[in-house]
């Protein structure tokens, strides 16, 4: 399942008679799941169920895919992540016990990386993301967070390199693009960052953080009108109360030079 793309291609080459069996369709569903393509995963699993309704193969993952309301599912999932991250010690324990059973359980390695990232233990975070990355070298999400850890460690060139790898690993994943813009801003590369963000806007036009970050960049470049425009757009997209406070404060202090570094 690690080389999900290769696996998928192999499955798709199978003759119809073999492809349309419950087992293969379930594997295809699992593969799409690993590739973060939940719609295709749903399709494959539902076909698998039609072909062999009594097979349990992959049904655990199908149940994860089957939240019809994607947004609600995400919300529930995020709530679970919060609990895991806020109870650091418990989180660490459960990941470690999973790793005792399977030392290559990359989701636990990644989970530990996330906990350490939240605790601002960036060396530990980097170490665990690297382990996760060595087990699963195809996950754009893991690469992206490895980039985050490197960025936090102020190893900007390595961070940028890893972020670029994350971008090419999955063109549909917008996060490393956003992170690239973040890193560029922290390196004072103000010319290139807006370009990256403009591209992201097309992909996720309702993503408030893109406009907010653009506002910050234009503010830093003393382009006040553009900054105001983007802050306004960011606010229209209903950011969290904490972000509303940050954005309004930035608007208020538009003409006061700020230390954007502080916030990154």
């Amino acid at each position, binding site marked *: 399942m690690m080389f999900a793309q290769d696996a998928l291609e192999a499955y798709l080459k199978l003759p119809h008679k073999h492809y349309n069996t419950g087992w293969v369709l379930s594997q295809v569903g699992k593969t799409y799941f690993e590739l*973060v393509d*939940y719609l295709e995963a749903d399709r494959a699993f539902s076909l698998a169920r039609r072909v062999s309704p009594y097979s349990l193969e992959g049904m655990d993952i199908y149940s*994860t895919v089957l939240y019809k309301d*994607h*947004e609600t599912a*995400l919300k529930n*999932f*995020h709530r679970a*992540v*919060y609990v895991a*991250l*806020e109870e650091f010690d418990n989180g660490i324990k459960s990941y470690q016990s999973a790793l005792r059973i399977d030392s290559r359980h*990359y*989701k636990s390695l*990644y989970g530990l990386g*996330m906990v350490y*990232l*939240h605790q*601002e233990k960036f060396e530990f975070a980097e170490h665990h993301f690297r382990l996760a990355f060595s087990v699963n070298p195809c*996950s*754009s*999400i*893991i690469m*992206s967070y490895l980039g*985050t850890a490197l*960025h*936090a460690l102020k190893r900007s060139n390595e961070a940028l390199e890893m972020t670029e790898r994350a971008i090419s690993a999955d063109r*549909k*994943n*917008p*996060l490393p693009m*956003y992170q690239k813009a*973040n890193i560029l801003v922290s390196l004072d590369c103000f010319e290139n960052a807006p370009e990256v963000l403009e591209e992201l806007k097309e*992909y*996720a036009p*309702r*993503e*408030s*953080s893109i406009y*907010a*970050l653009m506002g*910050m960049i234009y503010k830093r470049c003393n382009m006040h009108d553009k900054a105001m425009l983007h802050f306004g757009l*960011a606010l229209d*997209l*209903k*950011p*969290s*109360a*904490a*972000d*509303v*406070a*940050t954005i*309004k*404060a930035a608007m*208020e202090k538009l003409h006061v030079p700020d230390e954007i570094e502080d*916030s*990154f």
Partner: protein
Amino acid sequence: MATESSEGEEEGKLTGGSPVLSVDEDLREMGKKAAWSVSSCKPGNGVSSLRDDNLETYWQSDGAQPHLVNVQFQKKVKLQLVALYIDFKLDESYTPSKVSIRAGDGFHNLKEIRSVELVKPTGWVYVSLSGNDPRDTFVSTFMLQIAVLSNHLNGRDTHVRQIKVYGPRPNLIPHQLFQFTSTEFNTYAFVR
């Protein structure tokens, strides 16, 4: 907002009280990260009774007014809401009537940021720390002090059954300035 759900709030007067604690999803309880202390207490009704999630137990002061609850954090935190469980039906003259909420770096520079009058509430009452300006949504502070200035029916000592303090949830994705709002971004935010 939780503050709006508590009945009959006008000009710092809080009446009613809700039987069930209900707080905005964006908020998280911050009190567990703090050191709690009180100005005085009756043996067996100490500071732990304020934090035991048990509405049957209560803190009872044992000294001169004002009665103080001190909440000290290790680092500066953002706070937005204080929830108190008060029970006039059971506690009568022990029920706080005037409460002042103060913030500061430590005991030496506490300043009042809110004052409320409680009118015979039974249940959870919510005191928002937010100002009218969105930039003043939170209070950034090392310490919060909840001071009971007076009780109903001129009671001397006070009973408070629970106190919770809330602040905004931190960004789920560390080291990033803004939180994501779109499904496109959130889909990729975590390995599942």
